[in-house]
């Protein structure tokens, strides 16, 4: 092959052939890596098998546990995370930056580490064990433990989105609202939150999806008790040992949910 530029095309072989091929190949590898497992999940099942598998006695309780725990953990994240994000967005002190980094930490923390950390904080022999025991509260292997594990790993997704949204808010808008007689809480509830609503909603959806998929920390801190702490991901893990088809059907349900969340988030954050 000649390295001379082709006078008609005006482009070198590198430009015309090699580069597009390399980019195409690299892109194709990654797309296949994501698409093939999803295809495997969907194509090797049938509607009949899906419905049969969803009748499995494990599915109902797992759905119930998942729905209730993710709802509570999301409510906890939004109720506490929105004021925290407002605080962090409006203060650029050293302490605020440290807190922001700390809150973001669970994103890069391996879930197993999160599980161990939660046990060491709230377990019977953990940091908060004695005071909790004195109150008669035993957190590990309870449904509350599932909520804590989910909130721990999922909170950063919401808080980060909320901080970004609040930072985009024009400070003059907040100031003007106050000159119009609005107290700080009124500015927060009637100006900051409504204007940031689409971004907050998108953050909440992502956060909820992360809570939905929580596995490692839940397994270590809350266990895998059917009807009590067994969420959908744990049910998939359990089903895999006996019945691949049941695991597959549960997985398909979760793919559908995840896809719906993604579409909603993209629609919500489109400018």
């Amino acid at each position, binding site marked *: 092959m000649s390295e001379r530029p082709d006078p008609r095309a005006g482009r070198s072989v590198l430009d015309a052939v090699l580069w597009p091929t390399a980019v195409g190949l690299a892109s194709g590898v990654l797309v296949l890596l994501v698409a093939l497992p999803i295809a495997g999940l969907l194509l090797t099942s049938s509607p009949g098998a899906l419905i049969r598998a969803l009748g499995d006695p494990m599915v109902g309780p797992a759905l119930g546990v998942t729905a209730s725990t993710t709802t509570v953990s999301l409510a906890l994240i939004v109720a506490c995370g929105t004021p925290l994000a407002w605080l962090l967005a409006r203060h650029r002190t050293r302490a605020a930056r440290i807190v922001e980094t700390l809150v973001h930490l669970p994103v890069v923390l391996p879930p197993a580490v999160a599980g161990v950390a939660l046990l060491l904080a709230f377990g019977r022999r953990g940091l908060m064990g004695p005071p909790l025991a004195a109150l008669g509260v035993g957190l590990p292997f309870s449904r509350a433990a599932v909520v804590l594990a989910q909130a721990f790993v999922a909170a950063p997704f919401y808080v980060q989105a909320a901080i970004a949204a609040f930072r985009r808010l024009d400070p003059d808008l907040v100031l003007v609202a*106050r000159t119009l*007689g609005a107290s700080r809480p009124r500015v927060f509830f009637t100006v900051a939150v409504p*204007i940031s609503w689409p971004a907050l909603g998108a953050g909440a959806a992502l956060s909820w999806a992360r809570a939905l998929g929580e596995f490692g920390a839940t397994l270590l801190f809350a266990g895998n008790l059917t009807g009590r702490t067994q969420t959908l991901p744990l049910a998939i893990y359990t089903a895999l040992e006996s019945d691949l088809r049941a695991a597959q059907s549960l997985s398909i349900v979760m793919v559908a949910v995840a896809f719906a969340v993604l579409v909603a988030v993209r629609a919500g954050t489109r400018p």
Partner: protein
Amino acid sequence: MSTAGLEVEIQGRFRALSMDLALHATDAPIVVAGPNGAGKTTLLMAILGAETPARGHVTLDGVPLFDRARDVDVPVERRRIGYLPQRYTLFPHLAVLDNVAYGVPAVHRPERRRRAAETLAALGLASLAARRPAELSGGEAQRVALARALVREPQLMLLDEPFGALDALTRTRMHALLQALCARHNPAVLLVTHDVDEAILLADRVLVLVDGAISMDQPVGLARPRDRGHAQFSELRVRLLAELGVSESVAPSSER
């Protein structure tokens, strides 16, 4: 006609600032002109209460709004000072009517909206009531923002380069509107600009702020409507520019 004496003497984060003004509510605003970094923003933020100065005091009409020594710091929302910045600050999620109603000091929503509608009608903006801020032109947005501030009957109205982003024609119309409104609602008006022509067009009095202090207090006695081509206008412009220019270029140096 009300009189508002404004006294500001503060040490802010970046600079010290001192100013003692008798602000008479007139049909023409008092304009503060000054180069960048002269302390215009520090001044506005201190009067509004948006930033807490390290030292000093701010007094409006004899009432202390801020006094470090006596631990007085009236919150922004209780100062009765209107604020109109250059950037458009209508609440994007509220219709024009609800924007104006936001600041009406009344308990019930219907009453707030009724008074907001009245104000919009008085300004000839009634047709905009149902619109969203995104659907307004720049001039319309600033007119609504002005109405929103004035509906609270503020003691003092602060305008920070409010017409800087508007085209020349709209700006001229805004000048006329501002004068009409201030004559009606009667707040003392402090307008900050670095546009000397705008200062002379609008003001009965131009203050030049240099390095945190009023370096010149210039009454403007020209007849209205004012004409940029008028000899006295030009003369005033030259004098103000000199005051501003000197502050920018000449540093105090030892005489030979």
